């Protein structure tokens, strides 16, 4: 054990984003009972300021890249990429929340405090290099999101969503932890780097431990993390939770925790379990195929837009798992790129839904979008960009995301998975295009007629991710180069 406990400026700098978020989150929490001010935009402004400051902190931490706190944190390009991603997701969650919460008369600082805490946990996950830190980050993120899913506590659907999310989430955590305990027993360490050394037989304890032990641990951790990213066959909770949770929260759940959990997924499976890669590859292969197929085919049959986006998010988790199946640096980079593109387009699509849903979230059906193109051309145009990107049409981030993933899969000789994945994308095009047809080729319905004009926050929440999606689609190399450079997780 390293005995280097004490004040260390570099450690504190590398921990800067989490520190900023914790301080601001606590402040927001304490401010609520002092001010007694509900329905104030100030809390939102404060949270956005905190998130922007944390992005600055994350970038500054990257200038001092390296391990922190005795190797428990690893601040590298990979960590910084995901830290910035979840922070941006946080900002894009708060922007549509202004109007959404005001409409439901539910603007409190607690909402923002919980969001900030959840994001702090996700930042921690992004930088974690030790299973204790992974676990703590995962739980900070999850527990805050359970409460957020049930934020409308007088709404039965919100209650139910929170309860389902909570039950399956904590069940998943328990499984993950059991895997961690086995790793600790087999390798004598919970540090990813040290455990990897033992698993690959280069540890101080001599030969590698029994592969059965490690295999069971890997399977348990796969189940736990698979639940959290809603990969099939552990996806059952996602549609219910996304449908019942307040729309901006559903947007957040589909982007933030998912990206952070995939960061943990990639780091654990590409460092610690990398030496036994051929063992877990079939497992991930199967889960990737199942996620894509179940997600896309179930999405075809949905009438509720939030459920449809939930199934689509299951399918997208499948695409990212394809990149993990490739087990290569290119695959990791492709997964990183895809997650960034996916987060932007999905959160944008949800922002459009939260704009249109109306008081009490009445309008959530696909038909409610009919005629949006006539009445609100800007909303419709932005939503079209997100939908086209979700299909994977060229010039959008989604296209390059899929392109790099399937390219990485082919390089690793996963021909069948690539073919089946591409067929799946074709199926997916149908339900996204159905939305486009609804928006542009039908007469305006009740929902669109009653829609209020776009507020400033919503306008930003639609335009910013749309710009990001196009940027990723037109200049993908900027992000891809950084991802490719940081994807070398084993040092």
């Amino acid at each position, binding site marked *: 054990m390293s005995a280097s*406990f*004490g*004040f260390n400026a570099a450690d504190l700098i590398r921990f800067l984003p989490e520190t900023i978020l*914790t301080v601001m989150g*606590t402040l927001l*929490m*304490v401010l*609520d*009972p*002092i001010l*007694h001010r509900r329905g104030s935009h100030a809390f939102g402004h404060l949270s956005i300021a905190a998130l922007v400051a944390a992005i600055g902190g994350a970038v500054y931490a990257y200038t001092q890249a390296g391990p922190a706190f005795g190797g428990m944190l690893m601040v590298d390009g990979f960590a910084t990429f995901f830290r910035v991603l979840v922070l941006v997701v946080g900002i894009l969650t708060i922007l549509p929340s202004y109007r959404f919460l005001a409409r439901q008369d539910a603007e*409190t600082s*607690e909402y923002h405090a919980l969001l900030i805490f959840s994001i702090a946990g996700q930042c921690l996950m992004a930088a974690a290099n030790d299973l204790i830190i992974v676990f703590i980050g995962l739980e900070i993120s999850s527990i805050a999101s359970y409460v957020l899913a049930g934020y409308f*506590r007088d709404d039965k659907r919100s209650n139910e969503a929170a309860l389902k999310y909570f039950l399956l989430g904590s069940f998943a955590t328990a499984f993950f932890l059991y895997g961690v305990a086995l790793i600790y027993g087999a390798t004598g360490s919970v540090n990813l780097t040290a455990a990897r050394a033992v698993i690959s037989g280069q540890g101080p304890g001599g030969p590698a431990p029994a592969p059965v032990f490690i295999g069971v641990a890997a399977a348990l951790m796969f189940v736990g993390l698979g639940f959290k990213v809603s990969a099939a066959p552990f996806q059952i909770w996602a549609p219910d939770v996304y449908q019942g949770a307040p729309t901006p929260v559903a947007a957040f759940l589909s982007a933030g925790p998912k990206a952070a959990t995939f960061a943990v997924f990639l780091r654990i499976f590409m460092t610690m379990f990398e030496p036994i890669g051929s063992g877990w590859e079939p497992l991930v292969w199967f889960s990737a195929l199942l996620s894509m197929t179940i997600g896309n085919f179930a999405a075809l049959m949905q009438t509720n837009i939030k459920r449809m986006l939930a199934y689509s998010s299951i399918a997208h988790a499948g695409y990212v798992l394809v990149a993990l199946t490739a087990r290569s640096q290119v695959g990791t980079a492709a997964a990183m790129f895809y997650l960034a593109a996916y987060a932007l387009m999905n959160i944008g699509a949800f922002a459009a839904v939260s704009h249109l849903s109306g008081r009490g979230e009445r309008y959530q059906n696909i038909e409610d979008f009919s005629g949006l193109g006539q009445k609100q051309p800007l909303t419709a145009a932005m939503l079209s960009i997100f939908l086209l990107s979700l299909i994977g049409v060229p010039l959008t981030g989604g296209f390059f995301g899929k392109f790099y993933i399937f390219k990485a899969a082919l390089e690793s000789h996963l021909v069948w998975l690539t073919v089946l994945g591409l067929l799946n994308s074709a199926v997916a095009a149908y339900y996204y295009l159905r939305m486009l047809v609804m928006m542009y080729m039908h007469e305006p319905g009740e929902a669109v007629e009653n829609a209020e004009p776009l507020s400033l926050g919503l306008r930003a929440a639609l335009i910013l991710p749309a710009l990001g999606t196009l940027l990723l689609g037109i200049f993908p190399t900027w992000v891809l180069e950084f991802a490719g450079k940081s994807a070398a997780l084993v040092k």
Partner: protein
Amino acid sequence: MPESYTDLYFPVLVQALVAMGLAAGLLTASFLLGKRVRNRVKDIPYESGITPTGDARQRFSVKFYLVAMLFILFDIEAIFLYPWVVVYRELKMFAFVEMLVFAILILSGFFYMWKKGALDWAEPDRSRRKL
């Protein structure tokens, strides 16, 4: 030093057997020797104690759950003090500052709970919304 399971756990086994035997013996004795009386007074929960006032399966106020949850939350934070105490002399100032940060975070949680009225037993507070 005891060498095997049987040696080590023999006393436990004996105790378990004695406990079971005693209970079974007393019940049998009262069954065989006792006089059987059945009337209303005999059947109430406390034969010569307080008269029961109602059903035990009534619904409790949710405040009991709230207080229990808050208690256990703050109670469990104390376990972090145990490992901290062990290394306090070694780490000196660092440990002190760490615990200070920890305590401030806990206290801000406490402050929030207090101000939200989670501890007000009697009148429902106007500002209480969550929890």
